[in-house]
């Protein structure tokens, strides 16, 4: 496993959370006696990630995504388990280790609030000991790619969420880290900005073989960036593999959007279900176990006056939802 960037084995984490009933009396009571519940955030997570991979880390809220990322970044001490990232144990050799990684927590500020991002970048240059010509080249390139020439000169407190995110991404990548964690990087970004950010990540990945781990709720991120996804739910990994594989395994349906010039008779075919209709359009869900796409199209063309047929996979969201549900079902 020497050439793996990340090696995680049986990672466990339990939290103690204090609970308090609402109301004044309970607030006073909690001063003297605090009750807590123990929550198992991670129940033995294992995976390996190789160099140059972009791995999507997904799961519903509270599944343990951020907990895992934090343990990997060295800002969280797990209850048990082994983590080796770039050959380091993150929480033991923190200051040495963080030189080689970049982190963007979408929800947490990492740039100095009072200063323009540019000041932070120059600080990073010294902190990470980046040679000046390299620093300038890289900075200019990133600023151009993300279109933030003016923004980096404005104090962070006056920036919008999306602008801050772009600036934070630059800050996380300036020292050319080998491993980058992006925790919900496209949160709060508009469509154009999302696209730019994704292009940017892809470019960095291809150019420098940088390994990325991305947590997100935006399937657009996953489909554009990742070849491999890890799905975590209730502190357990429920799926780890390529997106192609997940489609093959879980894709039992195709969607057919059919437009008619004229619709004379009702549509009926084995293995097909109508999920939406209006005057000239039909949305059909086809069960690939009972019916082939070829047959269905044949049937449509010979029997109806068809203007257009679009065949597509259901959105990846559907699959993920299914996996979540399946797993929740297994647990009960």
């Amino acid at each position, binding site marked *: 496993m020497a050439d793996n960037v990340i090696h995680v084995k049986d990672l466990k*984490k339990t*939290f103690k959370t204090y609970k308090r009933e609402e109301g004044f009396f309970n607030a006073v009571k909690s001063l003297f006696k605090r009750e807590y519940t123990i929550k198992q*955030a991670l129940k033995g997570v294992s995976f390996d990630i190789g160099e140059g991979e972009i791995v999507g880390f997904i799961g519903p809220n509270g599944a343990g995504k951020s*907990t895992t990322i*934090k343990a990997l*970044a*060295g*800002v*969280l*001490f797990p209850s048990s388990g082994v983590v080796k990232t770039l050959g380091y144990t993150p*929480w033991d050799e*923190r*200051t*040495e280790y*963080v*030189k080689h*990684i970049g*982190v963007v*927590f979408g929800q*947490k*500020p*990492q740039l*100095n*609030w*009072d*200063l323009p991002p540019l*000041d*932070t970048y*120059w*600080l990073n*240059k*010294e*902190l*990470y*000991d980046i040679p000046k010509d390299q620093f300038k080249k890289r900075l200019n390139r990133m600023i151009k790619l993300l279109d933030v020439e003016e923004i980096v000169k404005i104090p962070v407190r006056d920036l919008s969420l999306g602008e801050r995110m772009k600036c934070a991404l630059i800050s996380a990548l300036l020292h050319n880290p080998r491993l980058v964690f992006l925790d919900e990087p496209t949160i709060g970004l508009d469509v154009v900005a999302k696209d730019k950010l994704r292009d940017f990540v892809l470019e960095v990945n291809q150019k420098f073989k940088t390994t990325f781990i991305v947590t997100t709720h935006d399937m657009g991120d996953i489909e554009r960036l990742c070849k491999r996804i890890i799905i975590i739910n209730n502190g357990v990994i429920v799926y780890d593999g390529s997106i192609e594989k997940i489609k093959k395994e879980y894709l039992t349906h195709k969607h057919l959007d059919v437009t008619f010039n004229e619709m004379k008779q009702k549509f009926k075919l084995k293995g097909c279900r109508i999920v939406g209709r209006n005057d000239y359009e039909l949305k059909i869900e086809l069960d690939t176990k009972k019916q082939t796409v070829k047959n269905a199209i044949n049937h449509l063309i010979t029997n109806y006056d068809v203007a257009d047929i679009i065949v597509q996979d259901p959105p990846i969201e559907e699959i993920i939802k299914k996996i979540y549900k399946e797993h929740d079902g297994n647990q009960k």
Partner: protein
Amino acid sequence: MGIKSKWALAKIGYKVGIKYRFHFIVSMITVPLSVLIYYFLWKSIFSYTSQEIIRGFTLEGMVQYYVLSMIVGFFVWADVDKWLSQDIKGGHVTGMLLQPMSLLCQYLVFEIGINSLGILIEMIPVFLIGFIFFGLKVAPLFNFTAFLVSVTLAFFLSFFLSWLVGLSAFWLQEISGLRRVKRTLMVFLSGGMIPLTFFPEVVQKIFHFLPFEYIRYVPIKIYQAEYSPLMVLAQLGIQLAWIIGLYFVCKMVYSKAYKEFVGAGT
């Protein structure tokens, strides 16, 4: 990681300090004012008791004591407990832990950056005011140099004490009450309110074994040339010893705090 990165971080502190320049300008006005208040207070005490010397101080010496106390105050001003608790609550600490520098070092260098600005803006005018209006004497070169060394050491002492108070925020979250207690104690026990000679002998002896008098009282005495050269060196040595001791305490408490923080997963 060399001195360059620390210098860069200090510059950041300096730049952030500029954001608070209004604070400095205000204190430039209020500091001479508070010296004036002490002047009138002690003038009336001296005339009421009709004594020339109280606890080893003439009226003139007393006023100079306060001027010097203000100047030392600029040096040893350490708000790291405030920054740290704010950063813990605001979630900034996670980001700081992702920097390749120890947390203590980040705050220390930052604080030095801020203070250097404060010293520049505030100290020189107060010295001038002291010389012109309150008959502050120019100290002999040896004493002045020792004074500068002593206040620098005093800054580290004050910083480490504040740091310890700040670290408690990792457990307590809200420490504004504790900070107020710390501030009052620091000013009172270091001789910022009244010179330490006003305390009973026994208490003064106890003070020798606490770090507080080395933050303010000792540097002032050095400036006022009240120690023999050998004694001055001894005092600087004690300051240094306190710093080293406190540094290890800080390290120990920090490693506990770090575990608490990363364990809680905030």
